[in-house]
């Protein structure tokens, strides 16, 4: 699956205008009438309307321009595309609407009736500014999948051009079993593309639901497996699924088509966590913090404390003990819970109690605002390990030792290294 990064113009908020513009581009992409080859020498091809599976109906307008773009690519690639009026009347005779033509049997039946050697079906979904498109090319005579493509791309005006190119790249790989007389530039009847009609997902997460990225539900894991009637997927191709189960974090996984696909374990939702901290500037000490999540693995309240000693510089001095207490709120940003690396921010307030031992025995309090903390964490080594930078501002006051200002260790804000245990 290819992800395109080019971006010319955002699709939204002018979908209609973009659709019209795309249609114009497609018309220009079609070969000039005089340049067309003799239809009799070409492979007949029925390109059924590519269906919009997006949430809502605002992307329905894109069905025609996207289908036209695919048709244009087949025309340019040497196929003769059967006019939609011809196959749609045939579908109506059978009581089939355009969405019903997505099924293999319906598509093959209609394609055969209109004399096509190749039937093209497909669908797309638009999420935010991305589009996922899936095409299936059916060998009518063999009743089997002859090729296909999946693509995720930025959905802007450049998408049509890239789709045209991808279809053009796919065409030479199509192999048909039809007699040579009906085969044109599409290829030679030498080899069928291996496809898979039944795919079994295997997972230890009993009851886990599996969805396609377009949110089409495949089913749920039962007795450790889920059998999916694919309708024909090219062996070895890749696709993505989303896994969901109550009490676990949703997760996306990209898998390769095989008879048995082993899905990775879900990570259970974390509602509590305990941090064990070690901070620069407080190395003769140790801290701990408790997190209580309001949204599992995403937002949380925390209460923390850190006890550390400041050693005397020589025998004339005496150790000083500091006890840092703080509380606040935090949130993870950008990366989902099962990411290898996550980023988070937090804020809050706290107080550092200091106790001087020896002849000057006395205690002091420094109040501070935990203005902004940010951290990175990773599970790559097993347990969650994080590194956090803390911007704390002391408010001063009568019993303050630090006065008013940013807390710095040398010339840098405090940095904390920690391990987190979650449950």
């Amino acid at each position, binding site marked *: 699956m290819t992800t395109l990064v080019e971006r010319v113009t955002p699709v939204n908020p002018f979908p209609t205008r973009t659709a019209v513009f795309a249609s114009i581009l497609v018309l220009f992409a079609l070969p000039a009438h005089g340049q067309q080859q003799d239809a009799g020498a070409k492979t007949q091809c029925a390109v059924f309307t590519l269906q919009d599976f997006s949430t809502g109906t605002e992307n329905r307008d894109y069905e025609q321009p996207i289908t036209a773009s695919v048709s244009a690519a087949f025309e340019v690639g040497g196929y003769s595309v059967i006019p939609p009026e011809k196959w749609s009347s045939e579908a109506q005779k059978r009581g089939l609407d355009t969405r019903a033509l997505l099924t293999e049997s319906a598509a093959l039946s209609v394609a055969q009736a209109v004399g096509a050697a190749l039937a093209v079906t497909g669908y797309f979904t638009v999420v935010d500014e991305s589009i996922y498109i899936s095409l299936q090319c059916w060998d009518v005579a063999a009743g089997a999948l002859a090729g296909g493509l999946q693509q995720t791309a930025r959905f802007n005006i450049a998408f049509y051009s890239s789709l045209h190119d991808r279809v053009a790249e796919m065409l030479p790989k199509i192999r048909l079993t039809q007699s040579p007389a009906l085969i044109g530039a599409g290829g030679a009847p030498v080899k069928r593309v291996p496809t898979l009609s039944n795919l079994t997902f295997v997972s230890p997460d009993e009851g886990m639901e599996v969805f396609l990225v377009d949110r089409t539900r495949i089913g749920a894991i039962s007795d450790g497996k889920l059998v999916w009637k694919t309708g024909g997927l090219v062996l070895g191709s890749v696709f993505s699924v989303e896994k969901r189960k109550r009490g676990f974090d949703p997760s996306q996984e990209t898998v390769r088509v095989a008879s048995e696909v082993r899905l990775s374990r879900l990570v259970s939702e974390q509602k509590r966590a305990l941090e064990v901290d070690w901070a*620069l*500037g*407080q*190395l*003769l000490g140790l801290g701990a913090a408790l997190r209580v999540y309001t949204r599992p693995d995403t937002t949380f309240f925390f209460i923390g404390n850190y006890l550390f000693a*400041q*050693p*005397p*510089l*020589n025998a*004339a*001095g*005496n*150790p*000083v003990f*500091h006890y840092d207490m703080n509380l606040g709120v935090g949130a993870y940003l950008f990366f989902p819970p099962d990411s290898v690396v996550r980023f988070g921010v937090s804020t809050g307030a706290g107080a550092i109690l*200091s106790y*001087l031992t*020896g*002849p*000057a025995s*006395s205690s002091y309090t420094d109040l501070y605002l935990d203005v902004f903390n940010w951290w990175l964490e990773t599970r790559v080594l097993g347990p969650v390990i994080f590194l956090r930078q803390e911007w704390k501002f002391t408010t001063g006051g009568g019993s303050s*030792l*630090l*006065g008013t*200002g*940013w*807390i*710095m*260790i*040398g*010339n840098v804000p*405090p940095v904390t290294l920690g391990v987190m245990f979650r449950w």
Partner: protein
Amino acid sequence: MVKTLVPLLVTVAIVLSLASCLFVLSAFPPTLSQVLARADLSAVIPAGTGSQYQVYIVTPTGGEFVILLNTNGSMDPAAVIMDSNLHLIQTYTLAQYGTWGITSGSTLMTDATGNVALRDHYFTASDLITVNQPPSGGLGTATLSGPGFSSPSAVKNDIDFQMVGGNAFAYGEWPSWGLQTFLSPNIQVNGAGGNYNVVAVYNVDDTPAAGEVVLVLNDMGSSSNMYFVAIPLVDVLSNGMASPLFSNYPYTTLTNIESSSVGFAGDSLVAYSYNSNSLVRYSVKPPFNQISSLFMGNNSGKNNGYLEYAYKITGGYSVVYDQVARKLTKVANWW
């Protein structure tokens, strides 16, 4: 074997030294663990007037005191007398000065017999300890005015300096205040390659006749350059000091130094450097090499610009006076 061990030992030494630095690093000033006593004088010294006071550690015979002296000379308390643990003994008021015949007090000096002079009268240790005890006597001839600098050696008070009209005057050995000797205006600090303030004078040797005096000067104006000048004590006592100073005596220039932090701590000179945010110890002898330093960090608690330091000249501790908070902290020397 040796080839393997040497790099290993060097590595261990480097790691350990780095680790020790890291363990000492803290948001809190490193001298916090050296604190021996603290005193809050915010109820004694009115808010906003803290900068009018100068802190001294004096050791007259029979006692050891920390004195905050009002250098303005026109407000109460005129002086705050504390013991060496920063316990408040008493405060002197302008009204008391008037009763005792002291015109006003802006200069503090100590003498060889173990007395403390405030302007034109001297106090014994007993006078300082006893509440409302008048001074033991007057100075006799000249009154002390303007900034004065006592520079007792480790064994006795043997030299004092005073600034008058931009010139520094040195007082020699005083068996008593009544036998003071003016050595004429013999230190020309102005018009000799620049204009300077006398920050301090330290007699750094216990053998006065053969020893040296370190004269600490800084630039007048915005520059924070500071100069340590080594002058043989015999030149001072014989009225034989050569002028201009910088052409005749060894000296060193220090940049970006807080002048209120300079002190003589018995075995070294100490000053706060803004260049390194550190307290730095210097040798007492030319070329005044740096001996060691202590990084104070950005969170030394307060801006050093309003901290004053006074070091006990026989060593052991210093007293830091926060002019804004009007608090005193007694700190054991960190080296």
